């Protein structure tokens, strides 16, 4: 997952720390996450039989994983019958090759794109642009971050970190609108984007989108949105390429409907998104619009390896509602960029750790307090904390986790040797009962000193066991009688 910026998963810790000092970012995130959580909460409170619908959606996703190879074959067959050209890609490079090949094949000079994490994952845009093709992100938030040269900071609201004034300045500079005032209203700015992008939709040779659900039974691709840019991208240009990660399949239309019952509510608190497109092949004879040529790219990029792990495969259930992000206190503080990858928040920490090289994702599983808010929020019941713990274990097993090492290992050793433990604590209490010096010893994690600076630590006192023994002796009884 190549990013068009300097954020990398490797620098997650540093990026997180920096983000928490950014007061403006924190204010924006606070506002946005509360907004989404409130809307979602209201929608779910009003959603009769909510838990049952969640269970059915989970079942639809589990079914898909349990029959994945068979369903993908069926998808290929039914999509082909409908006139779609199906392509398979092992990794990002192959996917880029296929898509740039299609673009060259149709002489594409202008490409319009719907919001698609998978196309970010494979770094598609630079590959298309390298061939001299104009690539336009058309989701308003994605359009904004594209103009700004930044990655999206949130699954649902990619430009949430930008203020109205930021956007005005950006449009003024990048869209050549010299007269555009910093005081331009949000509806005005939106209209400007609509006008600018409409030109592109009408001129586009190729539309590229992701896939929310691919229906194996019918060969259909389902796309969910609020703006209409995905409909535009799949209606106006003569060629449509849909890119899907291979786990995005549903066995049947019924399973797809069960997912649609839940996804918009969990994502934005809407009963249904403004536009849901169910596309099955290119336009039929006699139809005046819609793509004439339809492609589906099925991408692996590390997922088949994940499917083999009986615990970690649960991460593949995700249907990208973004609720875990909004509920995560860490995400609420640091935002999406800090994760250094297109996938952020609890599910992002999981996916990046599973799909990227281990040495790049060492710290991701540790950026979590294990509070469980994500797990409680997830409509599909993904147990993020459990999976993150398993990743911590894997990190230790392969010898790559370094930082928790010393403090934890020392404590573990001592706790298995109670005499040594008591001696160590006794010595510490004798020397530094107020814990003024010990946390600041060189060689210990610097976080300890910081902890001691920001919190008044309790002193090391006469141990509970000793005090209880004394009390009981004083009371002259060995044991308190029970009922």
């Amino acid at each position, binding site marked *: 997952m190549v990013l068009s910026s300097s954020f990398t998963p490797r620098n997650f810790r540093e990026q997180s720390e920096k983000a928490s000092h950014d007061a403006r970012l924190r204010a924006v995130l606070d506002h946005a996450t509360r907004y989404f959580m409130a809307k979602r909460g209201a929608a779910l409170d009003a959603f009769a039989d909510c838990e049952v619908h969640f269970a059915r959606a989970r079942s639809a996703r589990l079914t898909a994983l349990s029959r994945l190879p068979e369903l993908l074959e069926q998808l290929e067959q039914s999509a082909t019958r409908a006139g779609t050209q199906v392509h398979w890609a092992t990794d990002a490079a192959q996917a880029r090759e296929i898509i740039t090949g299609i673009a060259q094949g149709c002489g594409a000079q202008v490409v319009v794109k719907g919001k698609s994490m998978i196309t970010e994952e494979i770094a598609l845009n630079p590959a298309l642009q390298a061939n001299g093709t104009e690539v336009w992100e058309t989701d308003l938030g994605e359009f904004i971050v594209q103009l700004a040269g930044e990655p999206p900071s949130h699954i649902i609201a990619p430009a949430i970190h930008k203020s109205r004034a930021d956007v005005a300045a950006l449009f003024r500079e990048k869209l050549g609108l010299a007269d555009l005032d910093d005081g331009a209203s949000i509806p005005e700015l939106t209209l400007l984007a609509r006008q600018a992008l409409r030109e592109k939709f009408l001129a586009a040779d190729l539309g590229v989108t992701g896939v929310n659900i691919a229906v194996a039974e019918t060969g259909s691709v389902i796309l969910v949105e609020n703006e209409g840019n995905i409909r535009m991208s799949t209606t106006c240009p003569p060629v449509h390429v849909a890119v899907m990660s291979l786990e995005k399949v549903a066995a049947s239309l019924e399973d797809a409907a069960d997912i649609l019952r839940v996804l918009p509510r969990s994502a934005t608190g809407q009963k249904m998104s403004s536009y849901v497109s169910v596309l099955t092949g290119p336009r039929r004879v006699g139809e005046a619009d819609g793509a004439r040529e339809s492609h589906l790219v099925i991408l692996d990029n590390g997922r088949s390896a994940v499917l083999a792990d009986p615990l970690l495969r649960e991460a593949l259930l995700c249907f990208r509602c973004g609720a875990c992000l909004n509920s995560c206190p860490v995400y609420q503080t640091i935002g999406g960029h800090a994760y250094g990858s297109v996938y952020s928040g609890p599910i992002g920490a999981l996916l990046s750790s599973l799909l990227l090289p281990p040495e790049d994702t060492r710290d991701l599983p540790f950026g979590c307090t294990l*509070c469980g808010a994500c797990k409680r929020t997830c409509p599909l019941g993904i147990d993020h904390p459990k999976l993150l713990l398993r990743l*911590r274990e894997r990190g230790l097993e392969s010898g790559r986790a370094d930082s928790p090492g010393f403090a934890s290992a020392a404590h*573990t050793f001592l706790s298995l040797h109670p005499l040594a433990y008591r001696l160590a604590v006794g010595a510490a209490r004798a020397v530094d009962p107020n814990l003024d010096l010990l946390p600041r010893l060189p060689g210990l994690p610097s976080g300890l000193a910081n902890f001691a600076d*920001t919190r*008044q630590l309790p002193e*090391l006192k006469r141990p509970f066991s000793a005090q209880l023994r004394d009390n009981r002796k004083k009371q002259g009884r060995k044991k308190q009688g029970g009922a």
Partner: protein
Amino acid sequence: MRIKLMIPCLVEDCLPEIGLAVVSVLERLGVGVDHPQGQTCCGQMAFKTGDAAGARAQALRSLDLFAGTDPVVCPSGSCTKMLRTYPELFPPGTPDHARALNLAGRVFEFCAFVLALPGAPDFGAQLNARAALHRSCQLDGSEAPQKLLSAVRGLTLLEPERPERCCGFGGLFSLQFPAVSESLLEDKAHELLALDPDILVSAEPSCLMNIGGYLARLGRAGRPVRALHAAQLLDLALKGALTGGASWS
């Protein structure tokens, strides 16, 4: 009835008053308390850093220490949770797994245990004070502390705007991600102070140390906030009932 008391490592050496309050409350309510010697750690630190072998070794010690059939009571949600997680550390079908299942089935967080005693939730406890409750994410949504403390006469029990939001401790998280941890702690402290409490109360010692320690550093002109475990508050309030009422001065 008799129970075995499990004391978190933090309580043993830094917050022994919590343990003493637990014993005091339980004995006052007619429960016999045994305290197995040689306890060190439940294993959650090892477990959470991914050291399954270390966690397993500590679990085996705990399985020995708490062998038997007595209920095990612990004044920490996170330690209780860890003990309930022991079965995951052993292959199903093995004797250790069976022992772990057995232990997991009889381990109780302190507030939940007290709530299940005859006479609960109103034991006649009395304390005039304003207490802000931190629910602690480690209690997995348990309502027990809130139910128990609501029954204390004279106590105004208050909850912050986001009662279940993590205080940012997360064990080693606070050391590895200090600024993020502090941001969450700041948010939590802000919400709690907005309630203008006399007492900060929680059923989780680590959260108490985290938030209480921060509030102590922060200072508050005029009225410091005293951080108490639910057991300590209840102990005070039960004693208060005997002496004809207790007020927070």
